[in-house]
């Protein structure tokens, strides 16, 4: 397959993600591997590129949550095919992030979407799920030395757990970057809570995390 054909295949992969095609995406991934396209290249220029477009559609209010969920299903189906073929150690993760919905809160759609976008952006992710006891965030940080911890809450009650969680995290690692997000939060509350950043949606979350990690480096 020549360069142009490979580029076209990657574009098809991108389109399959954007079109929410959970059957076609892994099939195209197989084709990409068979054509000799490097697995990492297929992830970044096919799947992740597709999610970038999805993110833009979401910002422009063309895509909403249902579309995002299905696009992420397609992306994950493709990742399942490609990941085993990525050469270990050859490509550094963009960053390492722990994420979870704080104790007392079981609403995790937002966190799921955030995870998808970080996955697409090449981060190593430690997803603790929902209703996560505050101590578990701190323990996981200790175990993983992550760059960023992202806390999510949908309820005004559960968001009150965040200041305590942030104190616990900073006690483990004063340099860790803590991001918060969720419907009842805003930049002002985030700052008051001691967070390093706030993101109103999944797309902004990746941008903010990347900016803060780069600044700290």
């Amino acid at each position, binding site marked *: 397959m020549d360069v142009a054909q490979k580029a076209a295949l990657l574009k098809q992969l991108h389109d399959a993600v954007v079109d*929410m095609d959970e059957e076609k995406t892994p099939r195209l991934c197989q084709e990409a591997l068979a054509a000799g396209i490097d697995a990492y290249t297929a992830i970044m220029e096919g799947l992740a590129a597709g999610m970038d477009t999805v993110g833009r559609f979401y910002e422009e*209010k063309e895509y*909403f*949550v*249902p*579309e995002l*969920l*299905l696009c992420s*299903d397609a992306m994950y189906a493709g990742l399942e095919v490609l990941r085993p073929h990525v050469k270990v150690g050859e490509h550094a993760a963009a960053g390492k992030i722990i994420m979870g919905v*704080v*104790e*007392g*809160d*079981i609403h995790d*759609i937002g966190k*799921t979407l955030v995870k998808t976008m970080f996955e697409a952006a090449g981060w190593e992710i430690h997803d603790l799920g929902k209703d996560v006891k505050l101590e578990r965030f701190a323990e996981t940080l200790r175990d993983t030395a992550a760059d960023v911890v992202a806390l999510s809450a949908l*309820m*005004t*009650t*559960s*968001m*009150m*757990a965040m200041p305590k969680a942030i104190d616990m995290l900073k006690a483990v690692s004063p340099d860790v970057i803590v991001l918060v997000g969720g*419907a*009842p*939060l*805003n930049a002002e*509350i985030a700052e*008051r809570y001691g967070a390093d950043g706030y993101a109103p949606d999944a797309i902004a979350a990746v941008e903010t995390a990347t900016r803060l990690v780069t600044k700290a480096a």
Partner: protein
Amino acid sequence: MHPMTSRERTKAILAEKPVDRIPHFPFILGFCARNLGLPITTIYRDAEKSFAAQQMTFEQYGVDWGPIYGYASYGTWEFGGEIEMPSGNYQQAPAHKSFPVKTEADVDPLGLPDVRTAGCLPIAMAFSRLQESHGTPISVVLGGNFTIAGNICAVEKLCRWMIKKPELAHRILRLATDHILQIVGHWVDTFGADRVIPQFWEPLAANRIISPRQFKQFVLPYLVETGERIRELGVRHVLHHICGDQNANLPFWAEVPMGELGLCSFGEEIDIERAIEVLGEKAIMIGNVDPSLLLTGTPDAIYERCRQAIEKGKRAPRGFMFSAGCELPPETPGYHLHVVQKALDRFGAMQQP
């Protein structure tokens, strides 16, 4: 001139008669438990204690309307799933533990629950009997059709099926709608159509989750059907809590029958002026100070925000009630609710005849 009692004020606004001041509509549940030093779970488990806690708190803070019973996760338990009552320091309402529908194969066999015995309905009925005996509105609170559907199969699944398997989404929405109608029918049979005011909370239909196009396709038809059938029962007022950012859905809400005089409550995401433009001719407007502000804001900021909401809402042609934009956080400092009361006393006066 003597101030009206809370009951007089509520009765007057529903009859479109003058009120002495803007009523304060309660979106205040877990806060009442905290106010009495009780666990939040009391509000949802114990009809008598819940009613008493709300009633005492409303008297303390000058809140009108009357106690209500309900929560946003309604539907999960009733259709055979499990919920968890709030516990610990950070939970404010019942939450899903497991959904009745976990796979596509679970959808077809799903049947309608018995409205006398399913889930929280016995507690809700006991609560409504207290509403009746105390002369407060009998406002049975349920999720809206779409929210109940999301509580049956998990909203992520519903979202996926809307696009990939719309027939499954419609089947669940059909069940949710029939369930709602059975409950309202049961309440009407028990208390009379003129006493019952159904309340529907629709947080899952917010544009943070679905598009207006999806609202039109999957939410609106069921809301319209429900509204029409409830009207046929003789119910005069229906309350919809249009939760979250539903600005793009507002024109569709205008098509939903809400009785002779509906009630629409909004979150802070919707400007009351815009809501009045779209829905003011068909409903009492209710709203809409940001609960986060009530929890964490300064008293001055809260007072000012209340003033703005009251000044805007007063222009609603068919009436306005002040409210938090969603449930008042249980940990809201008591002084903040006192500031709300002060703002209502200061800015909420209305001309009496």
